[in-house]
Every structure is written in C-alpha cells, then in structure tokens.
C-alpha cells in the first residue's frame, strides 16, 4: 500500500505558506520534500543520490503529462484509493488532499486561464490518446544551469553570494524574500548531504568488509566536505553535482567536460587518483543516471568549440566515452560536439563506441550549428558557441543563460487531413479545425496549400500564446530557486527565472509528420492537380477506406516522388513545408513577447503515438501507422541509397529552427569492415550542412525484423558475395541465407 505521509506533509506545508512570498513558499516545500524523497545508497554506488519522487511535489520538469511545478498526480492517487483499502481516517485525508490540489496544481491553474478560443481548439491535454491537431504540454523541461559556477564556488561560495546580494538588495530597498528563500534552499541542499553522510556512516559501521567500510567512509567524508568547502577533487565535484541535480530536478547535464575536465586532470597530476579510478567514478555516475530512467533526458555533452581548457576537457571526454562503451546502458545520452580542427582522437573514439553497439555518442556538428543558432535565435556567435542540447529532442539552449521548453506539439499531417475535409477530423467525425472549404473547392494546388498553411498558422498562434501563458503563471507561482541560482541574471536581479530573472526566455514547438505531410502534398500535386490521374473525390474515398479495394491507387500514391531520394520535386516540397512552419513559428516570438520561439523536429515516440490517431495519408501511409521520425524520410521510403538520403536531408534549412534529429542506420559489416567509408560518408554529410547524426549499427536482430517488416528496412544494405544489395529486395531465401551467415 502506497504510504501518503510525505505527500500529506508537503500538502500541509504548502497550505501553511500558500499566501507567503513565492520564494518562501517554494523553499518550505523543498524542505518538506528533501531529504524525505531521497532513497538510500545502493550497492556499488560511489556517490550518494537516489530519489523516489512522490505523487505530490514540486519540479521544474514533469512527473507525468500534466504534473509539473506544484503538481499532484491525480490519476495515480485515485487509482491507489481504488486499489488499496486505506483506513477510513487516512482515506479522508488523501481525498481532502486531492480536492485541495484541484485548484492549486499548476497545470490546472494554467488551463483555467485559457481564453475561450484557446480552450476551444486546444481542447485536450492528452496528446497521446486524443485525435487532434495541436496540444499543449505542461512542463519547464531542459533546464541546464551553470554547473561550472556551482562547482567553482561550492555551497559555501553560493551562500556567501546570496548574503552579499541580499545585503545589496536591502540597501536598495528591493525585495529580499527571493534571497531568503534561496538561503533556505541551500540549507536544504546541505541537509541532504548531511542526511546521507549520517546514513552512510551507519552503513559503514555495520559493514564487516574492511574494503567496503573504507569506501563507505570515503563517500561519507566527501558528503561532509562539500557542505563546508568548495569541491577540490573530482570525487567531491561529482558528488555535489549529483546531489544538486536531483534536488533541483535537473535531468540534463550540460557540457560536462568543461566543468569536470580540470578536476580530473588536477587529480591525475597530483596523483590523487589514476585513470582507472576516474573511470570507476564515471561508471558509477553513468549507472546512477541510467537508474534515474528518464527515457528522454540524461544528456551529457562533450567536445566542441569554446572549451576554456580544451586539453583537460578532451581527456575527460575520452574517459566519458569509455564509460559509455563499458556501462552499456541506454542512458546517459552522451553526445559529442565536434568541429574541424578538434583533436581527432575524440571523433575516432566516438566511432569505436558507436560501433560497439551503443547508439552514442550522438554527433553534433559545431561548424554548422553555431551559425544556425546565431541565425535562428539571434545569439551572437560567441554565445552560440556555448550551446547545449538537452533531452532526446535536442533543442539548442545556452547553458545557464537561455530556456526554451517545448510546450506544444502540432501534428502537421492531421492539419492536412482536416483541411482536406473542411475542418472535420476523419477519425472522430468532429469539427476540430478551421473550416476553410472542401477539397473540391481548392481549384489549384496553391489553393490547397494556402488552406493548409492557414490551418497550421492558426494552431501555431494558439500554441505560442499558450507557452507565454504557461511561463507567466509559473513565474507567479515560484522562483524555481535551485535553477534560478545558476541561471543568468536571476541572482543579480533577485527574480525567479520565469518572473523576469532569466536572460533569454524562449520557447519551442514540436512538429510531427513533417515528411508525411510533404510527401502527401507532393502526391496530391502530381497525381491530382498536374497529371490528373486521380480525382479529388477518389482520393478522399481511397483514404477514408484506408486503401482497401484501391490497391492500384495506393501503389500510384506510394510511387509518387518521396523525400529522401535526392529527388528535386519531393525534396523541394519538404523544404516548402519546412520553411513555412519554421518561419511562421519563428515570427511568433516578437508578437507574443518571447526571446525566441522555434520549431524542433525531433525524435521520440510521438510520431508513433500521434500516428495512431491519424488516418491514411496521400503518401501511401496506412491509417494509424507511425509517421516519419524527426527529419527522416518516412517509412524506409529512401530507396536510392545512403548518399541520396544524405543529400536530401541536408536540404531543409537548419538556420530557422531550434534543432532537428537525424537517425541513421548502418549495417555492422559496413561499420566494422569499411570504417574508411563510414568516415567519408559522415564527413561529406557534415560538410554539406549536416547538423546532427544519431547512428545505429544494426545487428542480427534488426535483420530478423527486416524479414518480418521489410518495408521498414528498405535502406538496409548488406554485403552479398561480390556486391552490396538492399536486404529487403533479395528473395526470402537469400535473406535467410544472409541471416545465417551474419552469425559468424
């Protein structure tokens, strides 16, 4: 039975401080949460810091689709009440708690503030299970503060800074509550360290193994030291860093080689530890990250331009990649930034690690990205050089300086299918979009295109306004102390990051189905408007029937030009769709008052989940099947080989959005036996403007899947005797043959 004592206590504290200054309210809630939510050290941990978040609490990120800031997980709690037989008295308390949070939960507060039009068209928060064009997201994710500052001055240094700023504020007769709250929060952080110290000393006492006892005491010593001194060693630095990330609920870790590199090299030079010991630390840290099990977070970036002590950072970066190679977990999402002229050993090591079966590090091309960020965000080149890419999506942000949570999703393919049916969603039969006319009324392709654009623009405008509303309410609710502490210019201003404190407050919007939309428009333009092979009515019939009985037309649609084949017709349509949505989104920033508002074209399961509520599309995609992933060609439609695919995917501009994801898959044969080829492929891709690459080296399992679902593996190349072939085009017999041979 789930114990609710902690949640009830936090609720009590919240009630008590409900009308207090937001900084004090937040600080007192943090004090109620921590160390209560922290959990014991596990066997093998070299650093303290594990946590079991409660059903009620405070976070800058999210604990469920609408659980963020002051949150309550209503559904889970209601389930617990149904599942377990709580004593009557406790049950009443829990029910009262639920009722209390109905109006206090931050997401609920935001939704209550929706103006009528926003409430009408952004009608659901459940984007995973609802058919719709656009949905809001409730979270402030991707926070990546200035870790370097934390480690440079440590808890005592921060405490001193707060005192000094508070004194100045007092002199200026400014609000000092922000600093008072900050002080309480820092005390809580130190308390967490001391709590763990005490617990671990007890463990050490009862341990019968000398070695273990010694190790535990070392951990306890470290925890003690960081409360009274700034970190002096790598071990102390990692420990402070790790406790802090959990307390602040920061799940992405910035440019770690910059802020850890000097600690590493100093320790090595001073003979405090050797490389083996350092690797042990990193492996333990990596395991702690993996166990955090964030699915989409846990980003660590290494490499790239503007690292102050590059040689030290390189040394750390190599060790980090070795940790990834040996820990073999799906997190952290290690990423390598690189540029022409960087120590080549890093890129070489990266390929070794990827080839070893990890899909990490993810590769980021500084020579393209810095200019793109400069253009898209308007950051100076010097600032852009500081970029970091949190979570799976990788929206560019500046560590400790900018913020851009994705707070909306738009399904472009749904926008198109609704536009083809005068605002009606073919899945639910309801009017969910603007009614801009019937397909028959769009006499030219441009008529259709304009209607589609209008539809998209309407929803983008709503989402931009929603993002601002979300920030506004979050700013009123709380200063997000631990984050504001390390975000320019919150401390100097004495303001929370969403209450006017942060230097650059931006936003992002996730777009899905980009490629399917473009390919559908290509097919419609070619087959209906230009070659007149299919009528408009026929197309709608075909799609409504999910192609059943219309296989011939499906084939025609499937054979229309597709993005990803270096085909000018298809690629330029993708660019048209891309430029439209990216530029329109980007132009919202000024209107709604954000520093930037940009599209991200990303990689997660949303393409699949939203595909489930999207009907058959004119590109030949069947109803409810997944949509394309990131900026990738859809469903193995890249039939012309990897060079053609790469030539296509570098076409959409990277200088008008906040990041896009490129998944690539290579066969082990190619990756292992022809490293020279892989290197020149990647070099050419990056030279031509490739921003990013996530590389998978396919194993036997993938080949087996290719047998079952060949349509998804059209771009899988295998070596057959004296030549290469597309695996799925070989006869079943041959495929099986190859499959058996890859076993060797």
């Amino acid at each position, binding site marked *: 039975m789930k114990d609710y004592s902690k949640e009830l206590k936090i609720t009590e504290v919240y009630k008590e401080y409900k009308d207090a200054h937001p900084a004090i309210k937040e600080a007192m809630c943090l004090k109620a949460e921590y160390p209560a939510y922290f959990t014991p050290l596990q066997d093998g941990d070299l650093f303290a810091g594990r946590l079991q978040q409660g059903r009620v609490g405070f976070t800058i990120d999210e604990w469920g689709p609408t659980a963020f800031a002051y949150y309550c997980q209503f559904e889970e709690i209601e389930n617990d009440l149904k599942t377990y037989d709580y004593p009557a008295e406790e049950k009443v308390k829990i029910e009262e708690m639920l009722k209390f949070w109905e109006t206090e939960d931050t997401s609920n507060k935001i939704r209550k503030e929706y103006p009528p039009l926003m409430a009408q068209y952004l009608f659901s928060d459940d984007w995973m299970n609802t058919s719709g064009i656009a949905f809001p997201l409730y979270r402030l994710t991707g926070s990546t503060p200035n870790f370097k500052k934390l480690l440079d001055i440590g808890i005592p240094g921060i405490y001193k800074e707060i005192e000094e700023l508070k004194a100045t504020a007092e002199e200026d007769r400014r609000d000092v509550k922000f600093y008072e709250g900050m002080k309480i929060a820092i005390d809580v952080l130190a308390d967490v360290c001391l709590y763990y110290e005490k617990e671990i000393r007890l463990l050490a006492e009862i341990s019968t193994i000398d070695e273990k006892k010694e190790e535990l005491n070392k951990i306890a010593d470290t925890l003690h030291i960081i409360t009274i001194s700034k970190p002096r060693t790598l071990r102390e630095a990692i420990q402070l860093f790790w406790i802090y990330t959990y307390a602040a609920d920061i799940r992405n870790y910035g440019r770690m080689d910059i802020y850890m590199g000097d600690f590493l090299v100093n320790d090595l030079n001073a003979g405090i530890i050797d490389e083996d010991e350092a690797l042990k630390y990193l492996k333990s840290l990596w395991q702690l990250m993996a166990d955090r099990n964030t699915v989409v977070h846990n980003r660590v970036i290494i490499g790239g331009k503007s690292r102050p002590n590059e040689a030290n950072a390189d040394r750390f970066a190599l060790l980090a990649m070795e940790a990834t190679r040996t820990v073999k977990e799906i997190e952290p999402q290690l990423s390598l930034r690189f540029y022409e002229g960087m120590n080549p050993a890093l890129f070489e090591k990266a390929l070794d690690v990827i080839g070893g079966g990890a899909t990490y590090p993810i590769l980021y091309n500084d020579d393209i990205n810095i200019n793109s960020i400069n253009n898209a965000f308007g950051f100076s080149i010097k600032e852009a050089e500081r970029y970091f890419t949190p979570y799976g999506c990788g929206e560019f942000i500046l560590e400790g300086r900018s913020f851009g949570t994705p707070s909306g999703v738009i399904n472009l393919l749904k926008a198109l299918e609704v536009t083809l049916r005068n605002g009606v969603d073919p899945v639910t039969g309801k009017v969910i979009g603007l009614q801009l006319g019937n397909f028959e009324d769009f006499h030219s392709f441009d008529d259709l295109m304009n209607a589609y654009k209008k539809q998209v623009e309407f929803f983008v405008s709503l989402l931009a306004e929603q993002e601002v509303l979300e920030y506004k309410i979050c700013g009123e609710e709380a200063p997000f102390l631990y984050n504001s502490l390390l975000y320019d210019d919150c401390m100097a201003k004495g303001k929370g990051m969403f209450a006017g404190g942060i230097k650059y407050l931006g936003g992002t919007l996730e777009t899905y189905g980009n490629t399917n939309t473009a390919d559908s428009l290509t097919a419609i333009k070619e087959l209906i408007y230009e070659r007149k092979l299919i009528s408009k009515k026929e197309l709608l019939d075909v799609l409504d029937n999910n192609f059943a009985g219309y296989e011939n037309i499906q084939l025609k649609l499937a054979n229309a030009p597709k993005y990803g084949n270096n085909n000018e017709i298809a690629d330029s349509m993708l660019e048209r769709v891309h430029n439209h949505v990216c530029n329109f989104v980007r132009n919202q920033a000024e209107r709604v008052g954000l520093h930037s508002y940009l599209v991200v074209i990303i990689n997660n399961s949303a393409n699949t989940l939203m595909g489930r509520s999207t009907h058959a599309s004119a590109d030949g995609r069947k109803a409810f099947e997944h949509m394309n992933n990131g900026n990738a060609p859809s469903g193995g439609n890249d039939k012309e080989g990897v060079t053609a695919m790469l*030539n296509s995917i570098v076409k959409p501009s990277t200088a008008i959005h906040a990041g896009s994801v490129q998944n690539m898959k290579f066969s082990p044969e190619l990756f292992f036996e022809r490293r020279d080829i892989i290197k020149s492929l990647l070099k050419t891709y990056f030279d031509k403007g490739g921003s990013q690459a996530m590389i998978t080296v396919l194993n036997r399992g993938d080949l087996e899947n290719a047998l079952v679902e060949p349509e998804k593996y059209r771009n899988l190349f295998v070596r057959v005797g004296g030549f290469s072939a597309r695996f799925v085009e*070989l006869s079943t017999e041959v495929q099986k043959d190859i499959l058996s041979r890859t076993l060797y």
Partner: protein
Amino acid sequence: MNDSGIIVDIQRFSIHDGPGIRTTVFLKGCPLNCKWCHNPEAIAYKPQLSFNQEKCLNCFACLSVCPTSTHYIKDNKHEINFSLCQLSGDCVPACPNEALSITGKINSVEQVIELILKDKDFYINSGGGVTISGGEPMTQFQFTKQILKACKDNSIHTTLDTCGHAPSEKYLEILPLVDLFLYDYKESDYDKHKEYTGVYNDLIQKNFNMLYGASAKIILRCPIVPGINDTDRHFEAICDLYKEYPKLVGIEIMPYHNIGLDKARKIGAEEKFISIDTTDKEKSRKWISTLHELGCTNIRLG
C-alpha cells in the same frame, strides 16, 4: 543512339566495385555467357520483361492488356512465354503488386551524368568515383566512352569493369579515360574457358597484355566457382599471373553466390545457368590461404 544507351541499373553508394564510394552504372549486353553469371539480366542487348513470381497475386490483370499472348494461365497460375513478349510494357502498370517490370531502360549520357554528379562530394571525400559495369560496358562502346569522358571532364575517378572480350583498338581508344580496370580472369584453361563462358580466352589475354603494357592500372578479378574453377591448376595459374605481372594493383577473389539465379528466373532464363549453393565464408577463406601459400600475397576477397 550514340548519346544514349541501355541501362540495367545505376547503383549509388556502391562500395565494392573499385575504391571509395562510387556510383556503378550497369549496362546491358554481354558477349559472354558465363554459367555462373551473377547479373544474367544484363546479358541480352535489349530490354526484357521481368516477372517476380513471388509477388504475383494471380489476378491476371496483365492478360487483358497484353497485345501478344505472353501471359497465360496454367493450372490457375500465371505463367509467361518470354519469347512472345514484344515489350509493349502495358502489363507493368496493370499489375497491382509490381510483379512485372521491364529490365533495361534507355538513358541519355546527360541523364546518367546528372545522377553521377549528385554524389561528387562523396567521391572526393572517399577517394571514390564512377564504375561502368554490366553486362559488358564495351558492348555499348560509344555510350561508355561518353560517360567516361564526361566523368573525366568533371575530375571524377573512373573504373571500367570488363571481361576483356572486345576489340583491342577500342580498349586503346578508351584507355586515357579509365583510371582503373577491374579485369576479369575467369578460367586459365583455353577450352574450359570456352565451355564455361562461351568464348575462348585468347582475345581477353591479348587485351590484358596490351593494357598492362600500356601501364593501365588493373585489378584482376577472379570469380571462383566451386566444382568448376576452384582447382589447384587454376589457383596456380592465378599465382603465376601475380608473379608475372608485378604491377597489378591487386587481385580479388570473387566467391560464387547464387543471387543471379533469382534474377535469371525473373527473365525466364533459369535453365541456362548452374545452380549450386552460395560459397560459405570458410571455403572462401580457405581459397585465400591456398593462394597465400602459393606465394600470392596481394590478394583479397572482392
């Protein structure tokens, strides 16, 4: 017709026919009829109907559109009389499952070059380029020459994959346009060469000597077919060549695989070719070590 030719396929990101990342152009037409041919659809000089039985739904939509009686029904199954086909191509779009296609398309030099140029950056970064293969590219001599010339005009590395059976003067004419020859060496015995490939090897050897003498860069490619030419005698002959022609860029052993059979079936030519199992890795490794033992060191699996 000089400005255009018949192409079976153009393979981009080709990494096994010459160095680096390449685009390989497979031309139609070959004067040889090797029993183990792995591109049987490239032997005939003209386009051909191709039928993928595995994909056929037996809907017989093709029957009604065919101007001849190429398609017919036997035991409720779709069968094809390839000899009757006059290449109207009408059956191809009629098939709802893409079981039918025409192998061999007429392409202009410009079309081919346009495609080739798309990957030029990849060639430069990988030390790759363009390979003309087939079939036998020398059978479409003017077309091949013009593609090679256009490649050279664009500073693209060129490779010619040839069986060596073409007029000597043609080789001399094309030599300045070819950076690397992939030159087949199929069988050392004079009569057996005729038996296995349909032609004697004297012209092939003559051309080889001539090109070698003219300092052409050559990789010798030796298809090894179990039970046919995996003999000590042939391996020794390969080694003799290796010693006799020290300036060869390399020798590649091409172990037999039976992919060609699948393609032969599609054009109704299955019975013309041998049907044996694809060579396993162990066997091909053994061949390599045999050749090593015989003193042939610069050799690898192609």
